[in-house]
C-alpha cells in the first residue's frame, strides 16, 4: 500500500516538475546552459581574453617576467618583422597544402566506400580508415620519422632510404606528408557522411537529364558536399596550423608558428608569446567565419 503511495507521490512530483518546466521554459534553458556556459565562457573564453590582454605588457629584461607597463612593442614585433611574416605565411601554406592533400584523397575514397563498396565491407572499410586515429599522435609521428630518416654514408637510414633508396629527409615536405597522414581521417569522416546523405534522387535526375558521371560529380555532388568539405577542412587546417610537435619530430630545421610560440614562452617571454598567438587566433577566426558561410557548422 505504502509503495503504491510513494510511487504515486513520485509520479506527482515528476509531473508537477515537468509542468513547472513547461510553464517556465526560460528556466529550463537556464538550467541547461548554466554548466556549459560557466565552463566555456568563463574558463575558456576568459583565458583567451586574458591571453590576448597579456600580449600588451612589457617584459622585465633581466628576470624575464611580465611587468605592469603597457606597450605595443610585442604586437609591433610580431606583425612588422619580416622573418615572422614569412613564418606565418609558411605556416598558412603548409596548413593549406595539408588540407588540399587530405581533401584530394578523401573524395575518391569517400565516394568509393559510400557508393561503390559492397554493403558488407562498408563498415569495415570505414573503421579501417578511422582506426589509425586511435593509435596515437606521437606514435604515428615517430613511426613516420623512422620512415623518413635519411641516414648517410656513415649510417643506416629509415624505411624509405632502405627500400626505395631515396628519402625526402627531414623538412617541410616530410612535415606536410606527416600532417596529411595524421589528419586524413578528420577530413574523411565528414566527407563520407556527406556522401552517405546525398539523395539518390538527385543523382538519378542528373543522369536522366543526360549528364555524364564526371559532370554529375562536379555539378551536382560537389556543391552539396561543400559544407562537409568545409567542416572537415576546419580540423585539418587548424590542427596543421598550430602544430609544433610534428615539426620537431620530422621537420629537421623547419619552424612553424607553433614552434615560435613554444620557444618564446620558454624564453621566458610570456607577453611576446601571447602576441604570437594572436596570429593563429585571428587566422582561425577568419577561417571559421568563412567556413560558417559555406555551411560547415550545420555539418560538424
Amino acid at each position, binding site marked *: 500500500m505504502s509503495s503504491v503511495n510513494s510511487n504515486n507521490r513520485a509520479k506527482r512530483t515528476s509531473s508537477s516538475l515537468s509542468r513547472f518546466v513547461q510553464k517556465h521554459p526560460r528556466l529550463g534553458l537556464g538550467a541547461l546552459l548554466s554548466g556549459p556556459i560557466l565552463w566555456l565562457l568563463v574558463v575558456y573564453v576568459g583565458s583567451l581574453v586574458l591571453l590576448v590582454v597579456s600580449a600588451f605588457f612589457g617584459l622585465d629584461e633581466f628576470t624575464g617576467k611580465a611587468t605592469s607597463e603597457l606597450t605595443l612593442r610585442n604586437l609591433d614585433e610580431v606583425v612588422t618583422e619580416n622573418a615572422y611574416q614569412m613564418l606565418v605565411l609558411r605556416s598558412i601554406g603548409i596548413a593549406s597544402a595539408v588540407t588540399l592533400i587530405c581533401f584530394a584523397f578523401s573524395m575518391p575514397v569517400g565516394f568509393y566506400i559510400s557508393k561503390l563498396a559492397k554493403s558488407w565491407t562498408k563498415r569495415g572499410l570505414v573503421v579501417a580508415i578511422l582506426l589509425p586515429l586511435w593509435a596515437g599522435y606521437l606514435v604515428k609521428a615517430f613511426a613516420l620519422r623512422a620512415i623518413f630518416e635519411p641516414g648517410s654514408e656513415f649510417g643506416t637510414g629509415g624505411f624509405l632510404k632502405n627500400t626505395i633508396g631515396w628519402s625526402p629527409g627531414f623538412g617541410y615536405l616530410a612535415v606536410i606528408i606527416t600532417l596529411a597522414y595524421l589528419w586524413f581521417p578528420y577530413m574523411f569522416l565528414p566527407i563520407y557522411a556527406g556522401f552517405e546523405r546525398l539523395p539518390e534522387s538527385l543523382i538519378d535526375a542528373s543522369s536522366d537529364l543526360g549528364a555524364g558521371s564526371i559532370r554529375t560529380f562536379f555539378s551536382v555532388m560537389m556543391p552539396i558536399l561543400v559544407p562537409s568539405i568545409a567542416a572537415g577542412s576546419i580540423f585539418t587546417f587548424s590542427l596543421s596550423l598550430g602544430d609544433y610537435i610534428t615539426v620537431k619530430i620530422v621537420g629537421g630545421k623547419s619552424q612553424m608558428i607553433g614552434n615560435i610560440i613554444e620557444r618564446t614562452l620558454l624564453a*621566458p617571454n610570456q607577453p611576446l608569446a601571447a602576441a604570437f598567438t594572436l596570429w593563429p587566433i585571428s587566422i582561425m577566426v577568419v577561417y571559421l567565419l568563412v567556413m560558417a558561410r559555406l555551411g560547415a557548422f550545420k555539418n560538424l
Partner: protein
Amino acid sequence: MKFVKRNLTLACAGVLALAACGGGDSGSGSMDKLGDGEGAVNLVAWAGYVEDGSTDPAVDWVTGFEAETGCQVNVKIGNTSDEMVELMQSGEYDAVSASGDATLRLIAGGDVAPVNTDLIPNYADVFDDLKNKLWNSKDGVAYGVPHGRGANVLVYNTEAGAAPDSITDMFESDSPYAGKISVYDSPIYIADAAIYLMATQPDLGITNPYALDQKQFDAAIAALESQKSIVSQYWALYTDQQASLEAGSVTLGTSWQVIVNLATANGAKIAATKTKEGATGWSDTWMISSKAKHPNCAYMWLNHIISPQANAAVAEWFGEAPSNSKSCELTADKNHCTTYHAGETDYWSDVWYWTTPTAECLDGREVECVPYTEWVNAWNKLRA
C-alpha cells in the same frame, strides 16, 4: 547606456589589473633548520644529472637516495637554460641545476632562495674556486651549491676526414662538414659565434663573448645567418643529436660529452675535442626554489648530489669535472679528473662559462652591451 559603458570600462580595467598582477614574488630567507623529508622532491635538471637507472641500469644515484631519505624524486629535464628559468618561475619545482646564464636571472627574479650551506655538510669539500662566484652568489650570500663544470665540446665523425680542432669548421661555408652540422638551439649559442669572431675578426675587439655591443652583436648574427646554409640540425633535445650522430646524418657539431658517450656506446664512430680558439662551457649550480613545496627534501638532494660518491658518478656519466674535491679519488676511471681538468686553471682560462649577458657590459666597458632579451629576439628571428 551610461550604465553599460561604465560597467564595461570597469570590467576592462578589472581584466587589465588581473592580467598585470601576479608579478615576482620576493624571495624568502634561507632555511634555519633541516626538518623531516616531505616524501617527494621535484627537480629541474640537465639531462644526465638525475639518473635513476632508466637510461642505463648501472647508472643510478637516485634510488639509493630515495630509499635513504624517503624523498621520491620527480625530474623534469630542461633542454635549455631558458626552459629552466621558465619552469622555475612557475613555482612547481623545488630545485634546479642551473647554469650561469640562468642563475642570475633566477636570483633577480626572486625565484630562488639563498641556501644555508650549514645545512649541507658536503659543501665543505667543494673546490674553493667554485664557491661564492659571480654566478652563484649575491652580496656574499650563497644561492646554491656547485654541481660541476665542463666545456661544450666539438663532436666529429672520425670517418669523415682528418680530426678537426677549429671552430671555423662550424661556420665557414667551405667547411668539409657542410650540410651535416649540428648546432645547439638556444640564444646562448650566439656566444659561440662571438668566439668565432674573436679568432677570425679580432679588429671587432670582442674580449668577452657575453659582452657584445651592438656592432659586435650584429656581426655575430651575420655569422650565424651565413652558417644557416651549412647547418642541418638545431638540437635542443639531446637524444635528437644522439640519434643523428648514430645515423651519420650529423658529422660535426657542438655537443656535450654525455651525448658523445651515449652515441659511441650505440656504435657511432665519433670523437670529441675542445676547439683551439676557446669554447663556451658551463659551471652549474643546484639552487632551491623560493616557492619550494618540499624544501627539506630539496636540501637533502643538494647534499646528496654533491656528496663525493654521487658527484663522482654524475661527473663520470655526464663527462664533466666534479665540484667535490673528494670525488676525484672515487671515479671509476682514475684519470677522470685529469681528463676533465678538474684542478687545472689553465684549461678553464679560455672556457667561457654560460652567463647572462646584461646591458652593463660584463667585461667592464663603458658602452652599452646587448642584453639577453635581445639575444632571444635575435635568435627567434634567425630560426624563424
